């Protein structure tokens, strides 16, 4: 029974870690104490059983971070974060310790129902264990089944990938098992000194995914964090590194819908993509973190650094994102178009409702010859939210023949929200051709009434119209993801009208 075996092994491993590397004062603790110091950075590195070079790397980042200040240029407002009031390490464990369905926020349950995830499954996803004495054999069996299921799926996954030579594992494992790859590429796209949050992440990242696709290999399946996320709490400082070697192809799906309803306040992830000659990486995200309650309290601060390096000639990196959650989003998936003829794409749907603040966009840095990029951004603002597209397109001196096309469309629902477009364009090569289009419109009452006259409810009508508005981007998502995203868009706009 692979599941049991895996669990046993994991437990063993943890024991060994604690024995050999345990920090005396902290040994019994599941969590590091609040605050950040060199001690804590060492503690994290030791908990993860990391080699010395990794600890060194983290410490350098930490020292750098001490000299930096939080950026303030984004169009977002939030109370000052006390970085000494955060736990930087928590041992993997179920996300919540709720013991029955009754204790879950009814709002969350509703969301699950609308997503079509049956409650029994919810019980599992929320990490509920049957109460002692409450012997509900049906529930227990289903939970166990489900766990077995996901393990067996994950295992099939691994075997097939291994056959293709694809490495797909938690980055903490990759650091130990493939140090040469990690050392070569980690921080090569987002340097440890890059920006305040990325530097913080470099010092304290807990886990994340590592992918390496060998030359000429077309990864046989879409890679997804879905299964791993249910397995463990990936935490607030995720680190992902994806390398597509020459002539390879990989499509990676990040996040999933409702189950990833994390309660951590601050998230500062870093994602690095490297595409070598003729390689292609497609990276899709559907983000639905807790946006805060109807009064604007709580919710995730999502400060993410995502960057792809089209390092080789004819390489291609494509970012697709559907952002519906988080109280504050600060996120600019970018492409460095270094290789000649390389291509970067950014397709984005950013929805804000309630009191959400979104400041998102992309950077396309054209360095190589005949590089091209395409930006399609759809911002939807409802409620009292603020939605900003911030984009930078630059062509450097040597980027002869660089081309960019940008289209930013914003849709406003109601009159208490705002949409803003902040494009920066910079061409140091006269042969560069950059095109920029932007529109802002209000959702039309006549269109809504047309739909409602045909039997749709007000909310269904809004969902339908918005889904039409974002269709160009939805089409970029893998099929199953697109369907989920579509449902999510409708859900996240509930209560936006009326």
């Amino acid at each position, binding site marked *: 029974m692979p599941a049991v075996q895996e669990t046993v092994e994991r437990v063993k491993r943890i024991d060994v870690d604690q024995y050999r590397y345990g920090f005396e004062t902290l040994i019994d603790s599941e969590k590091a104490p609040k605050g950040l110091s060199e001690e804590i950075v060492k503690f994290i590195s030791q908990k993860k059983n990391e080699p010395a070079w990794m600890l060194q790397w983290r410490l350098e980042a930490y020292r750098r971070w001490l000299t930096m200040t939080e950026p303030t240029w984004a169009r977002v407002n939030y109370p000052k974060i006390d970085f000494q009031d955060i736990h930087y390490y928590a041992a993997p464990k179920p996300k919540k310790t709720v013991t029955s369905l009754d204790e879950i926020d009814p709002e969350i349950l509703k969301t699950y129902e609308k997503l079509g995830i049956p409650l029994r499954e919810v019980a599992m996803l929320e990490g509920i264990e049957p109460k002692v004495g409450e012997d509900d054999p049906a529930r227990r069996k289903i939970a166990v089944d489900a766990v077995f299921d996901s393990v067996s799926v994950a295992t099939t996954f691994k075997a097939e990938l291994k056959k293709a030579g694809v490495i797909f594992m938690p980055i903490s494992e990759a650091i130990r098992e493939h140090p040469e790859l990690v050392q070569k590429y980690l921080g090569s796209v987002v340097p440890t000194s890059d920006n305040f949050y990325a530097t913080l992440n470099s010092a304290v990242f807990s886990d994340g995914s590592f992918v390496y696709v060998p030359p000429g290999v077309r990864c046989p399946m879409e890679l997804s964090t879905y299964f791993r996320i249910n397995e463990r709490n990936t935490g607030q400082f995720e680190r992902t590194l994806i390398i597509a070697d020459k002539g390879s192809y990989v499509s990676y799906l990040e996040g999933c819908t409702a189950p990833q309803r994390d309660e951590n306040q601050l998230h500062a992830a870093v994602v690095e993509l490297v595409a070598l000659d003729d390689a292609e990486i497609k990276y899709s995200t559907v983000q639905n973190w807790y946006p805060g309650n109807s009064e604007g309290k709580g919710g995730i601060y999502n400060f993410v650094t995502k960057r792809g390096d089209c390092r080789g000639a004819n390489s291609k990196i494509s970012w697709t994102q559907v952002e519906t959650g988080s109280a504050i989003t600060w996120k600019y998936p970018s492409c460095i178009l270094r290789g000649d003829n390389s291509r970067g794409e950014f397709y984005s749907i950013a929805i804000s409702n309630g009191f959400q603040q979104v400041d998102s966009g992309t950077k396309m840095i054209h360095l190589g010859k005949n590089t091209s990029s395409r930006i399609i951004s759809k911002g939807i603002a409802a409620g009292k939210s603020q939605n900003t597209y911030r984009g930078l397109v630059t062509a450097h001196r040597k980027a002869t023949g660089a081309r960019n096309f940008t289209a930013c469309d914003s849709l406003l629902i109601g009159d208490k929200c705002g949409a803003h477009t902040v494009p920066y364009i910079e061409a140091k090569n006269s042969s560069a051709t950059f095109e920029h289009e932007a529109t802002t419109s209000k959702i*039309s*009452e*006549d*269109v809504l*009434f*047309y*739909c*409602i*006259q*045909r*039997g*749709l*409810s*007000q909310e*269904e009508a809004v969902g*339908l*119209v918005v*889904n*039409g*508005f*974002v*269709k*160009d981007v939805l089409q970029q998502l893998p099929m199953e993801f697109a369907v989920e995203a579509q449902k999510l868009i409708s859900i996240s706009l509930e209560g936006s009208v009326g």
Partner: protein
Amino acid sequence: MALLEVKDLKVRVEEREILHGLTLTVNEGEVHAIMGPNGSGKSTLSHVIAGKPGYEVTDGQILFRGEDLLEMDPDERAAKGVFLAFQYPVEIPGVATMNFLRTALNAQRKARGEGEYSTPDFLKKVREVSKSLNIPQDMLKRGVNVGFSGGEKKRNEVLQMALFEPSLCILDEMDSGLDIDALRIAADGVNALRSPGRAMIVITHYQRLLNYIVPDFVHVMSKGRVVKSGDKELALELEASGYAQFEDAA
């Protein structure tokens, strides 16, 4: 019981009264034509029956099978069988017509407590109806009314009417913008829907449409009221002498 009873209806838009006490009774199986000069309030009446926001009913009643229609949300009215073919159908970019038809039909069925159509059943039905209206399948893959010609938009309205099988069909100038052939096809489509259980209100400026869709009653509206009612001969009379004779009556 009448299917639709509009009693002494007074309606304001932005502080201005548009309908000044309009009365109209429509029974099952009947076809009523409403004619009248521009701005007389024909579209306003159709919007108020369908429940479009922005209109303030200051007096009067609208009963649908004896129920107070004004108390119902517009989607509830649709599910009960009120259908309005718009004078100006809107475009919905990015929403494939086929998807729209299906979403709307299932929403109505759900509201009535009926099961959803299965995909093959739905497709079969759409294919039948669109064929009879001469609507190519390709058009149904495009966004709702996006890039449709004026005539195609109107035919799309009739298509929906045929698909949803409403009990009250209000057609607001379905003949405007249609060429002779398209008019005949659309009218045939409407005629095919005439049935003892279904009533229609046909709003038009031209007698010509009424040659194809022959009404049981013709009403003349002027300045927010029905000023004369009669049978189909009244339309011919109007065609000959215009509306001027009613201006004073109003």
